[in-house]
């Protein structure tokens, strides 16, 4: 059975990183981390967050603002 060929013209899969970032401000307490960011968050700091994470962070945590 032939394996389906990947269409080179197709859109990239949604879980592939786009390389784009979104500026988000963290308003929560220090000592918190986000898997994939690789650093410990500081209160009041703005971070360039991969856009794949940004929507889920803002939706899921009270301490992130666009």
């Amino acid at each position, binding site marked *: 059975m032939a394996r389906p060929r990947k269409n080179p013209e197709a859109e990239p899969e949604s879980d592939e990183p786009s390389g784009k970032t979104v500026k988000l401000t*963290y308003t*929560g*307490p*220090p*000592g*918190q*981390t*986000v*898997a994939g960011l690789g650093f*410990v*968050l500081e*209160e009041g700091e703005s971070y360039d967050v991969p856009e794949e*994470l940004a929507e*889920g*962070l803002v*939706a*899921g*945590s*009270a*301490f*992130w603002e666009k």
Partner: protein
Amino acid sequence: MSRIDFVGLARQDAGRGDKQTTMEYFVPVESTNVTLNRETLEIQETTGTRFPIGIDYGTRYFELPLTGAPRPASLPRILSGFLGQPASATATGGKHAHTFDPTLSGKIPEWHSIFAVRNDPAPPIVDLFYDCRGNELQLNIAPNDYLRFDATFLGLHIDDTTPAPVPTTDMTRKTKFSEATIEISEDGGTTFGPVVSAGWGFTYNNNLDTDEAVLGSRELYALPEGNADLEVRFSPRENMLDYYRQNLLADPTQIAVKMTATHADGDIIQVVAHNVEITDAPAAISGADVLKMIEVTGRASLSPAGKFITVVVTNSVAAYT
């Protein structure tokens, strides 16, 4: 659960029914084995056959036992589900002290929403429990271990449609055994003296009433707090004869028991049981073992000053609203 799973908590500002999809703290846990406590309707009828007929479901609620090592930033959010909202004040070193005292007016177990996400399967298993209140809370610490919590929430509802968020995980430092000290007071909490102890723990229970079924609904009508109970345990390795004899007295004596865990960065977790009466202090005889501690168990009651348990968490968080 594996490491990629996560649990998040948020207080429901407007109380019951105010489901939160945005979490405040994502708390590292060792496990949470969610169980469904559900009534079933079944009647054994004469049907002319020996084979069973169907059942129906009745009222239900969820039990969410969270176990792990408390982190200073998120511990107050857990505690508010059991002891009510804290009073927050500025402390030294830029820290903030959050004091929990369930004897004060209005300090009732706060309603919480709790995300539980299992990321191993694809798609992930995502539950958002809401209308949750804390029922039984344990804190324990032993040598060569961390301070540990075992916090059982009871939840009335589940939302299985809200997608999993991206967690912002509380990674403030856990409390090690070497940072904890035990003290007791024999004068009603005026003065405390240190006790060389090989362990400490307490179990606080709100005894939430789950027998609140009503006609016309499969929801529990309410989840009210019942009588509060508090058991305190510690294991002195000195003055063992005194503790053993205290338990044999005709009438109980009252002591206050304090655990203080101080982190190097200035975060502090302190628990005081204000009026503890010893109910058990066994001294086992064993040819195989050295008697190296008396495992004292006590029942806490309301002190003459009207105090029961006070928990103070000092950390870098300004407030828990």
